[in-house]
């Protein structure tokens, strides 16, 4: 069995979702398996067209800081979140959506990017994934 990384994405902030997807892709590229479990505010990023909609975790300034960071990222030729998610899936990464959050937020499967989601689960699903992982992170 190959090594594995499991990440919980609790935050819906754009910069933190970047961290999660860069780490996930990095793990897959380095030969590990990877699972990312989206819960609470993080789950909102799995809504259709919602991936890049999050604010910045700091210095958002009503969206101005976010615009500036996006501009700087473009200048530094940083890949978009959509591309990182596509690459993550192409390399075999798993995406899990938290069902309880869906209930709380009033979201059904058809509100989410279903084609990107491998599994819908609760805490047991996460623990099952995490107990076999050598790297686990909470973002």
């Amino acid at each position, binding site marked *: 069995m190959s090594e594995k990384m499991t990440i919980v994405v609790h935050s819906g902030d754009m910069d933190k979702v970047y961290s999660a997807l*860069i780490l996930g*892709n*990095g793990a*897959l*590229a*380095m*030969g*590990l398996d990877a699972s990312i479990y989206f819960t609470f505010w993080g789950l909102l990023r799995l809504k259709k067209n919602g991936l890049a909609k999050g604010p910045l975790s700091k210095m958002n300034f009503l969206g101005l800081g976010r615009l500036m960071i996006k501009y700087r990222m473009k200048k*530094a*030729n*940083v*890949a978009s979140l959509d591309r990182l998610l596509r*690459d993550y899936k*192409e*390399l075999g990464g798993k995406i899990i959506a938290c069902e309880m959050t869906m209930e709380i937020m009033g979201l059904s499967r058809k509100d989410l990017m279903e084609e990107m989601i491998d599994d819908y689960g609760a805490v047991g699903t996460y623990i099952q994934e995490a107990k076999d992982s050598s790297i686990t992170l909470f973002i």
Partner: protein
Amino acid sequence: MANISVDVRGENCPVPLIETRKAVRKSNTGDVIEIIGTHPASKKEIPMAVRNLGLELLEIKEEDDYWRIRIKC
């Protein structure tokens, strides 16, 4: 046996690693993959990934304004 080229010049973290991994996944045993890029950390990290994946590192070479890594699958 095929020769596969991956050009990630100008790409930033983590794209060189991702594109290398994609090429490895599509390759067959014995294929040679040549990656050229400019991202400094990837020059160190692609060889780490190559070791993790159990592949053979053939060459790391510094050219004028980019690096070249060759691996055997």
